[in-house]
């Protein structure tokens, strides 16, 4: 580890803190008082009228119904685009239709905000599919995440009146505002900055060149920057190319790398401020951000340290390992730029990769796994990250309530048996899917045949795949050949359950909170700000999140680390 490395990391966190409030405020105004922006409100009126949106407040059930309906249509359209791409324009390399199981997997993957990629972008998808299919759904999936968060935070902030429970907002209004006024302008600017660094943006076919040594090389082209911008800002993570953000055409310079890291956590961090503003408890918002930053710093410290270490298995060779574990990493980013990127990629639900996580040290890879297994609540995906964090907060105040023997309250509303049940189900849903999927795959020959690495690392590959899919992350230990019918279909299922069942549970929770009275806090109320709360929340996240998976983690990264320290190969 070097001072320069820590300076880069520190600089990024300081910028993040500085941007949280202004951006959080902008988001608040966009959603809660859009009349502040005259041009935008005229524009959205036109779209509302065209689509027939009445802007009526919806119940949580109507809201959830529209959310799932819109996404189902997304899956169908995306599936159709892929399977008919050979008839569609903008296919200069003449790629054939995507096979149905892969197309299904990819459609579910992009709609559920996972962006798991069982295909190689540059040799499978036409520019049309990348743009009209994937870029489009990147926007929609990110927008959907924001809507879920908005509905939940409004339900918590709402004073019960006789309006009934029609108070979580309107799904269509929230969706369109997210896409048009949050992601679109930000992506436009970000895409141009990326192009200035060397990210591609064109519609040319691949270029054949004769290299300096006289060999033939074909260089892929395409509209990369426009997709790259939303991939990062929307915490989607699906790259244009197979190598994702490691590809020099996606992430050409250290500056583009720095900005991608910042953009990945920017909106999730800003939402903590928006949340504080909506629920009129700014200090609680800051407490959530502090919790996130603490866990994130812990993660990057571990990754950075272990990736800087020499590989003990190479110690006897005639090598200078001062630069650290560079297998699967790019020279221009080095260890700090790769460690922080990987940490943010798994803290959020983004899952982009500027290095190959399969080649990380066992402990480095373990941190990535744990980041996802915690439920991606450290920053998390745009919207849904905070959504999951609130579930952990509910469990925290519930535990605090048990300790002092009082009915727990959150933001002045009583938390009762029903709400705790939703929160527990939300948290327990993930291990169920992840562990069943993993165990089934390692017991079946069609699951095992996809492994590239053997021994404990092979188990890590499968565990990583189901974790990434269920948590809608999308990054991979890419040695696993996931493009088989078994993995395509089961991972698609895991992604679907991980996305929509969790949103359903969270919104059902919102529905049961919306009509509760807000009580004035008294001396017995457990405060949801300050060090005591932050400490308890960190404890709950780490204990609930990590302990569930302790046995399987012992058998995979921990055991692999023992192999490594003993100098044993697999």
């Amino acid at each position, binding site marked *: 580890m070097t001072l320069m490395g820590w300076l880069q990391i520190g600089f990024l966190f300081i910028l993040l803190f500085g941007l949280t409030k202004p951006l959080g405020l902008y988001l608040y105004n966009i959603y809660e008082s859009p009349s502040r922006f005259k041009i935008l409100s005229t524009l959205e009126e036109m779209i509302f009228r065209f689509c027939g949106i009445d802007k009526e407040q919806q119940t949580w059930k109507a809201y959830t119904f529209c959310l799932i309906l819109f996404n189902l249509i997304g899956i169908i359209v995306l599936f159709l685009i892929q399977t008919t791409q050979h008839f569609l324009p903008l296919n200069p390399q003449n790629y054939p239709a995507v096979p149905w199981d892969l197309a299904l997997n990819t459609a579910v993957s992009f709609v559920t905000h996972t962006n798991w990629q069982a295909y190689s972008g540059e040799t499978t998808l036409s520019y049309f599919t990348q743009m009209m299919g994937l870029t489009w759904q990147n926007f929609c999936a990110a927008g959907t995440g924001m809507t879920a968060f908005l509905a939940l935070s409004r339900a918590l902030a709402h004073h019960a009146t006789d309006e009934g429970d029609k108070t979580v907002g309107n799904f269509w209004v929230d969706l369109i505002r997210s896409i048009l006024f949050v992601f679109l302008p930000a992506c436009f600017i970000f895409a*141009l900055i990326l*192009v200035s660094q060397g990210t591609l943006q064109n519609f040319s076919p691949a270029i054949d060149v004769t290299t300096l040594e006289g060999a033939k090389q074909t260089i892929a082209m395409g509209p990369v920057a426009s997709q790259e911008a939303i991939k990062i800002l929307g915490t989607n993570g699906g790259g244009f190319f197979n190598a994702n953000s490691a590809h020099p055409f996606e992430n050409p310079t250290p*500056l583009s790398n720095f900005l991608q890291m910042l953009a990945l956590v920017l909106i999730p961090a800003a939402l903590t401020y928006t949340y504080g503003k909506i629920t009129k408890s700014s200090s609680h918002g800051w407490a959530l951000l502090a919790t996130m930053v603490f866990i994130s710093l812990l993660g990057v410290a571990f990754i950075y340290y272990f990736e800087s270490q020499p590989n003990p*298995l190479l110690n006897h060779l005639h090598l200078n390992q001062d630069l650290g574990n560079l297998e699967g990493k790019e020279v221009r980013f080095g260890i700090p730029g790769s460690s922080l990127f990987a940490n943010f990629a798994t803290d959020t639900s983004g899952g982009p990769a500027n290095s190959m996580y399969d080649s990380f040290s066992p402990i480095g890879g373990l941190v990535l796994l744990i980041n996802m297994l915690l439920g991606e609540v450290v920053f998390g995906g745009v919207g849904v990250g905070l959504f999951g964090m609130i579930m952990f907060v509910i469990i925290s105040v519930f535990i605090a309530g048990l300790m002092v023997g009082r009915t727990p309250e959150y933001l002045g509303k009583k938390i009762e048996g029903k709400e705790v049940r939703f929160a527990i189900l939300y948290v327990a849903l993930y291990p169920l899917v992840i562990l069943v999927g993993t165990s089934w795959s390692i017991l079946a020959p069609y699951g095992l045949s996809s492994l590239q690495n053997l021994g404990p690392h092979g188990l890590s590959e499968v565990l990583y795949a189901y974790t990434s899919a269920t948590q809608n992350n999308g990054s991979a230990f*890419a040695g696993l050949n996931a493009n088989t019918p078994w993995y395509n279909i089961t991972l698609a299922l895991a992604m679907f359950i991980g996305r929509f069942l969790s949103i359903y549970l969270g919104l059902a929770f919102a529905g049961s909170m919306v009509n509760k009275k807000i009580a004035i806090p008294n001396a017995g109320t457990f405060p949801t700000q300050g060090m005591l709360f932050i400490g308890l929340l960190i404890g709950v996240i780490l204990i609930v999140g990590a302990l569930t998976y302790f046995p399987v983690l012992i058998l995979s990264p921990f055991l692999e680390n023992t192999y490594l320290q003993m100098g044993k190969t697999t």
Partner: protein
Amino acid sequence: MSKDILISFKVSLITLFITGLLYPFLVTEFSALLFYKRANGSLILNDQNKIIGSELIGQSFKNPSYFFPRPSAAGKGYDGMASQGSNLAQTSRALLKRIEAKIEEIKKNNSEFIPIDLVTASGSGLDPHISPQAAYWQAPRIAMHREVSLKRIVSIIEDLTEPPQFNLLGEARVNVLKLNLVLDQFFGPPTMLP
């Protein structure tokens, strides 16, 4: 309900048009206007105006008169259509064997320790850079094959070393293709190996 289905389709249509079509084309237009070369792959042309590569995409070099890049897992090596890393774990025997073979291949008479980037594959398989250490390590071989002084080669490497961006971000690095182009420019193309 049927009303919501209709809205769903209309919203899908309008977002598809705005984010899938309008937005990428607008970005393309503006990029072409502002950063034409970058948007089109940062290509390098030779004197005859032929494209010899992209400054962002690494190339294979096997001739000992050229600087070697990092090993590549992209296709058969630096395949611009098959970006990927090796995805081998640290404990993988295949990785150990591959690194041992690479050391055997490039070490020759050089007694200095080999910088790790010269034997490890990058994440993209297209990494255009090596570390300055890796360039200096190769300098004696280049000097011998090109029959020029070591000092000359070292000063070329110094000139082409890019510091961290703004002296803060990323790592110091040398672009292998640019380095080899300068070698050819100064000393002429090397004799081709059989």
